[in-house]
């Protein structure tokens, strides 16, 4: 194996690898703007200049391939001078208005200005002025003055999104990033250029100027937009989600996520119409009620039916923990064989990058933990048929608006009892007798299993009424940490919603079964004990990167009631 020495430390250097690559892999930071591990190198920012023995000039670490015996200095005087020079050059025309820039706090240029520049500029001339608010596409806006022409966005659009619409025009300091005539940046991954942008040039139309970075907490989570389960960060201020950003996970989504995932999967969490208490139908109207009353009511209603007059539908939108307890409660305690779920597959709406036709984050997991047709083929079709012909009289539905499908909707009226878990009123709750206000993915702990059979954790980022950000170990923003209780930003609305698994556990207790789960992790622990493909897992082991389930063949058959 060839060797390369960087700053006095010697590393293996497989042929064809670059200096920046070997350095990064070994924890040596070489500052850079234009280089990105997933894009072809461009070599234009010159921030990664390093000194290589026997080379007459400084070399760019991003495009200099290692050779056996190469000796590299990343912090020699010559290198530091070049770095200072590049920083000074970058800042002469870049607006120095960080206090009003959306990127401040997460800006590579700002960070490097503190870390790698001498902290002052000798430039006294006029800066070049350029357009400040250019619409590159429906979701992305450009401030041309802030652009440092690193071309990351251009390369992303060409190489990853395969929509080559971005280019530079003009020359020198007058260079302008733009779209080709009659095109716009409107591919389904367009917003990834916002994080790729090392400065505040590219911003999200949805998020820009809503919050400073440090006002928000950032919590590791998983996108619920499809079966990919892109790893995300959920950004919350004042108990409200302001944006989702992709979190790197090479096995799942690399550095990317789609625009639908960013924009369409969290607005319901913040919605003013969120349910904040259980609802029970009284004289034809759904009325808010207390949890104890709703749970007692649900149990007493369910007890009016025979086992096989009751069916339960899990949900691809609910966690493994929720689905597991649903099937456990209905199979073991209620005694029905009728447990399945509604799939949400949009054939054709998929691609080779991330987007999957299955529009739920957890159908694979729900199936895995036992929400699947019974031993005699009791599946969704037979359940719906039973509802239609009146043999099934009571239906219990996890978080899923099943009535959005007209074929389902038309049979729901036949039911004598419909109990649903929901985040807000929807087509299904119109038919419901009891509605439990369920907390969303953003308000609880849990796991999903993506289409690759990858188990992934999500964590609470938004607090419900029963949670406390500090006491319950939430990730905290500066405001969360330092605000007084009467500060304006401490007053975000908190709903009285509960995780579905806890609602189910409460039902079981009233049914007379001792479910001793205190936390979602307790439920998950039982899953790992009872579902062989989960064997050996724990929340700790799943961590922030996820763990893959054991091979499908080892799955036990669905438990028989």
């Amino acid at each position, binding site marked *: 194996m060839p060797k390369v020495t960087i700053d006095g430390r010697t590393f293996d250097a497989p042929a064809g690898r670059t200096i920046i690559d070997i350095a990064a892999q070994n924890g040596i930071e070489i500052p850079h703007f234009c280089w990105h591990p997933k894009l072809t*190198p*461009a*070599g*234009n*920012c*010159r*921030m990664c*200049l390093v000194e290589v023995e026997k080379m007459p*000039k*400084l070399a*760019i670490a991003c*495009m200099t391939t290692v050779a056996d015996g190469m000796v590299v200095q990343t912090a020699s005087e010559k290198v530091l*001078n*070049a770095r200072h*020079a*590049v920083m*000074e*050059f*970058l800042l*002469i*025309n870049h607006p120095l208005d960080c206090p009003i820039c959306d990127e401040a706090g997460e800006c590579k240029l700002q960070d490097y200005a503190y870390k790698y520049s001498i902290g002052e500029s*000798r*430039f006294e*001339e*006029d800066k*070049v002025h350029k357009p400040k608010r250019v619409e590159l596409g429906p979701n992305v806006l450009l401030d041309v003055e802030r652009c*440092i*022409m690193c071309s990351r966005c251009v390369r992303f659009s060409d190489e990853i999104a395969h929509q080559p619409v971005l*280019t*530079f025009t*003009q*020359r*020198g*300091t*007058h*260079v302008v990033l733009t779209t080709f005539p009659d095109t716009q940046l409107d591919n389904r991954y367009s917003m990834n250029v916002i994080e790729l942008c090392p400065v505040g040039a590219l911003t999200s139309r949805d998020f820009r100027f809503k919050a400073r970075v440090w006002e928000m907490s950032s919590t590791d989570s998983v996108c619920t937009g499809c079966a990919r389960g892109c790893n995300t960060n959920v950004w919350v201020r004042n108990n409200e989600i302001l944006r989702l950003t992709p979190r790197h996970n090479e096995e799942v989504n690399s550095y990317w996520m789609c625009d639908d995932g960013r924009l369409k999967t969290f607005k319901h969490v913040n919605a003013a119409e969120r349910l904040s208490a259980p609802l029970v139908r009284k004289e034809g109207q759904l009325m808010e009620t207390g949890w104890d009353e709703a749970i007692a009511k649900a149990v007493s209603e369910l007890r009016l039916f025979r086992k096989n007059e009751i069916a339960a539908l899990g949900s691809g939108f609910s966690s493994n923990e929720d689905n597991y307890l649903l099937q456990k409660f209905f199979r073991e305690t209620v005694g029905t064989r009728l447990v399945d779920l509604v799939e949400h597959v949009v054939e054709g709406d998929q691609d080779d990058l991330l987007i999957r036709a299955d529009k739920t984050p957890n159908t694979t997991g729900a199936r895995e933990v036992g929400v699947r047709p019974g031993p005699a083929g009791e599946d969704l079709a037979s359940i719906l048929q039973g509802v239609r012909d009146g043999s099934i009289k009571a239906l219990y539905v996890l978080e899923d608006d099943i009535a959005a499908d007209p074929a389902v909707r038309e049979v729901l009226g036949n039911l004598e009892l419909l109990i649903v878990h929901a985040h807000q009123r929807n087509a299904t709750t119109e038919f419901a007798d009891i509605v439990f206000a369920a907390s969303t993915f953003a308000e609880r702990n849990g796991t999903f299993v993506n289409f690759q059979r990858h188990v992934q954790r999500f964590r609470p980022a938004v607090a419900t009424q029963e949670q406390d950000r500090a006491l319950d170990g939430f990730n905290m923003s500066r405001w969360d940490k330092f605000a007084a209780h009467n500060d304006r930003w401490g007053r975000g609305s908190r709903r009285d919603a509960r995780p579905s698994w806890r609602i189910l556990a409460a039902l079981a207790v009233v049914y007379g079964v001792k479910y001793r789960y205190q936390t979602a992790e307790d439920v998950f622990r039982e899953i790992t004990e009872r579902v062989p493909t989960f064997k050996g897992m724990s929340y700790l082991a799943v961590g922030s990167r996820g763990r893959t389930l054991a091979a499908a063949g080892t799955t036990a058959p669905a438990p028989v009631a």
Partner: protein
Amino acid sequence: MMLPPSHPDQATKWENVILPPTKDLHKIDVYRQGGGYGALKKALAMKPEEVIEEVKRSNLRGRGGACFPTGLKWSFMPKAGTKAKYLCVNGDESEPGTFKDRQIFEFNPHLLIEGTLIACWAMGITAAYIYIRGEYGKWIRMLERALEDAYSNRLVGENILDSGFTTQIYIHKGAGAYICGEESSLMNSIEGDRGYPRVKPPFPAQVGLWGCPTTINNVETIANVPVIIERGAAWYAGVGSPKHPGPLLVGVSGHVNQPGVYEMPTGVPLLEIIHKWSGGVPGHKGIKAVIPGGSSTMVLRGEALEGVRMDADSLKAAGSSVGTAGLIVMDEDTDLIAVITRIAKFYYHESCGQCTPCREGTGWLWKLLTRFEAGEARMSDVALLMDVANNIEGNTICALGDAAAWPVQSMLRQFRDEFERRTVDRPDDAPVSA
């Protein structure tokens, strides 16, 4: 009347071979009557590697500014392989002070076409692009006409001179960017991309035009090739300076009585070029400074010209370079601050904007210099100017950064007093630095 300029008072005797004084030489019949395309015929009878060997032995060095040995460059091209190979002939000629290739387009275009064909034969190339700066409208049309004539005489295209060798030549017009004279930008431009230089390595001989092995030669370099084949490497190597031999087109501009392009052997003293070939300085004024090889080469003080010759080694020893042999003469009354400000403006205007130091630095240099020109600079700006130039030099993707930095650096080194005199805060009694 189509005759290249010549000068009767030349001291060094030279009979033109690149731009011979033949009337209407641009016409194919005239060119052929004088033995034109004879070198091609001779080359086609040789093995390709023999042609390369002959060019190597001639010691021909590139005329585009870098003086790289041409035969050696040709030998970098892979001999075999499944990929196409290309030749790009660089006639972008956009450097201020450089206007020699234009003379070849105008007065001897068939020499260029013949040289292109011989180069293609030597390297096994079946497609060549002659890239001409877009502003050369008249000369583009002239070369197109010459190429049409060569095609219709079956000298280009299929089965050239019944040798079985086939190669095509295409003329590609530039679109007004100096940077496209940089060889990798030139290839991007031909490919239809933005004129951005490529990071090297890989070098064009491995990954060039459309990812294929490519050689890029200057127009004048290629025009020397038929001469080498016709007269032999030994003759050629004996012309002018031994380490940088051959005829050289020297473009003289600035304060001389007869500016123009003169063909001469390499190694002619600069003072002879100025006083004998170009008719001396108007008004018999003294020479304050010269830029010997196009605007990107280092300036020399007028009093330091004694013994300096127009070849790579002599000019290197003098602290500059032969570049494209575009000699700019400035008399004793020249405002050098105005000169360097204008040069800096050129590089600011032409910086492609791809990499940081050149994009930002060229503009900064120009803005600083406009303050010197207006007499509004401070003493501290003198050092700053040097710093900015130093911070560009060597840190950029292509040589344009260096080309922008060198004139400023050398002007500061040679004429620092002129800068200091233009500052607002120089103490009146302060000694002026030399």
